[in-house]
């Protein structure tokens, strides 16, 4: 009825308003935050891109990849090597970083998408480690354990404030791209494959091909995150590719909620800021992170954002009076 329309429009309007406010806040940040917190915010944004790319595979496709760090690291190394050794143009280097990661994603993905469940996860881990070992041991080419130093962005981008805008723009662009993907027909097929692979296959869909495409996109965006990170810290190191690094977007996503689009972003922000805060007075960050994760797994099954959204919709339904007869979204563990 008329009320339903209001609610729909209201939903869209409020979403747009929230978006505008968020973007506004983001644009203003460099003039409000201290250099230290601006650095933390920049980190959080880059790692959010990383986490979002992971969740394309996990939340929307139902596959847990434990090797995303390899693409992240390759993006970073490509940029680092092109800038320091070949004195390449910065923007082309960023693009190259994304491409290198995408190509690696194509090769690795080709083998991985034939597997499901835990085998998929372990194969991504194996490939990730393989790439890590190659970079780590190829001392003459990659600098080995020492990594590559002196990776500078050009001109005004050396200013943390200006670089922040680059990061923020990349974040907005990646989020928008992913949002369009998951809400496109392609995205619906991914979700269908996640929910019921056999039925999807019966419809004549080549699961492997779709999964491979998603894998490449995910790898490319992970590569973008790495490509942005290297000039930010002026260096890259082999540990960027280790499986332990691959665990970071996984943790962030579960923390924030794999069943919502922005869950990974929320999780990343919480992780990054708490990390910076805790490091101010103790080294024992891992135990805090570990306990956090266990608490979230047990008490907040949808992650922070998932849990919050559920509570919010339940509250709204109970208080609006229009909610009768509406099928609830609580109980659904997957993003729609």
């Amino acid at each position, binding site marked *: 009825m008329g009320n339903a329309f209001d609610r729909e429009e209201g939903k869209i309007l409020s979403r747009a308003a929230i978006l505008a406010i968020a973007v506004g806040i983001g644009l203003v940040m460099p003039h409000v935050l201290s250099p230290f917190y601006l*650095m933390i915010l920049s980190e959080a944004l880059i790692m959010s891109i990383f986490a979002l790319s992971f969740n394309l595979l996990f939340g929307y496709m139902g596959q847990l990849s434990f090797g995303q760090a390899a693409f992240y690291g390759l993006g970073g190394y490509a940029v680092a090597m092109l800038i320091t050794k070949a004195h390449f143009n910065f923007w082309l280097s960023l693009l190259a970083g994304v491409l290198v990661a995408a190509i690696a994603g194509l090769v690795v993905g080709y083998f991985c998408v034939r597997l499901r469940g835990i085998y998929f996860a372990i194969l991504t881990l194996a490939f990730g480690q393989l790439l890590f070992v190659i970079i780590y041991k190829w001392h003459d080419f990659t600098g*080995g*354990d*020492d*990594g590559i130093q002196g990776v500078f962005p050009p001109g005004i981008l050396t200013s943390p404030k200006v670089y922040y805008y680059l990061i923020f723009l990349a974040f907005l662009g990646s989020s928008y791209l992913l949002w369009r993907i998951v809400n496109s027909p392609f995205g619906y097929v991914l979700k269908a494959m996640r929910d019921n692979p056999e039925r999807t296959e019966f419809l004549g869909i080549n699961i492997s091909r779709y999964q491979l495409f998603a894998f490449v996109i995910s790898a490319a965006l992970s590569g973008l995150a790495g490509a942005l990170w290297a000039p930010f*810290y002026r260096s890259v190191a082999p540990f*960027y590719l280790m499986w332990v690094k691959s665990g970071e977007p996984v943790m962030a996503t579960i923390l924030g909620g794999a069943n919502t689009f922005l869950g990974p972003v929320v999780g990343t922000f919480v992780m990054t800021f708490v990390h910076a805060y805790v490091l101010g007075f103790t080294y024992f960050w891992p135990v805090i992170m570990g306990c956090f994760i266990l608490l979230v797994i047990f008490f907040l099954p949808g992650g922070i954002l998932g849990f919050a959204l559920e509570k919010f919709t339940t509250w709204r339904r109970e208080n609006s009076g229009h909610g009768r007869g509406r099928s609830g979204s609580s109980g659904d563990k997957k993003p729609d």
Partner: protein
Amino acid sequence: MRSGVLIKGKVVVFLVAALVAGISGVGLAQEPIRLGAIWGFAGPCHMLSESAVKGIKMAVEEINSAGGILGRKLELIIRDTEMKVDVGSREVKDLILREKVHFLIGPCSSGVALALQVVHSEYKILRISTMANTEAQTVDKFTPYVVQIVPNTYMEAVAATRYMHKRYPKAKRFATIAPDYEFGRREEAAFSEEIKRLVPDAKIVYEAWPKPGEKDFTSFITAIMAKKPDAVHSSLFGGDLVAFTKQAAPYGFFEKIPFMALYDLLVLTALGDDAPEGVMGFARGDFFMDPNPKMMQFTEKYRMTHGTYPDCWAVQAYDGVYLLKEAIEKAKTTSTEDVIKAMEGMSFDSLRGRFTIRALDHMGTVPVYQGVIAKDPKYPFKIWKDISRTPGEEVIRPEESVREIWKKTGVVR
């Protein structure tokens, strides 16, 4: 009524207290000089970093109880790099941006040092390098914001090679085992260069590159022994060297093959009776290597404070803090550029004798030491005999050579 008076009274007391606190605060608080100590408390670096911090803390306490530097207290902030380049970069940014340190001292790992200096140079903060010793800090990747008072990989390896060659002049076939990162790579490259200069037909028959923090050296040990080298040079250190020595001993490694590595006091203490006698060592100034009066005095005090003898890591870190103090006092300011200028060409009376900071590349003409492991009834651990102290001037890379390398790496000075 009464409550009104009470409240007013409380407010007055509060205001007076605040005023007093404010005034006394203004009087006392001259901003302290903040020193960021950035070390790696992981892997083979762990035990060395802990020693360095002991030396730094002793120096800081002494300086503060004597009135500080230019009347200001020296404040120490410690951070852990976990011996990782990415963590180190992050921590140094934290030190500079959040803690707002004026100077840096550290790190342990040469790889981390190179990453750090890109960052702190950009923020124009001076770092004193007292442990990480890759030559790249002052030569290949020179930046004016680094002053090095630990013998660099070139100096250390050249002196050690000459010592080894003197004892084993007939050796022609060599093997190396070193941790696979900047320090190991540089040190073995310098060894290789020098031994080929001394012995024209020298050959490196096997290079072992375990990762830093390797725990199982078995396969490397058997691989080296299979090649039957005449001598082995190693830049394994700390925990790695302890593990390697323990694992190699049952193979009869040290009886069969002349071996030389960084057998400093920490390693000798950790090995205890298992320290292989007759094996050569090189290090950077543990107390027994340079028993001059200043060192002996320091040793006494260190023993009283920490219950152990000082190793070269504590010694060099202690020297580093005092060098900084002297430079700040000479420059009469903590402004980085002035302190750097004060340090250039400065001569310093360290625990290891007198050395100079070369103006060209900020490298100190610091001594290097070699010896042979032997028992000594005075101590519960083994030390060295046949100790050789090489003054820095004899092995430091000549200025023309530095400039040549700068032409290649693009350093302009």
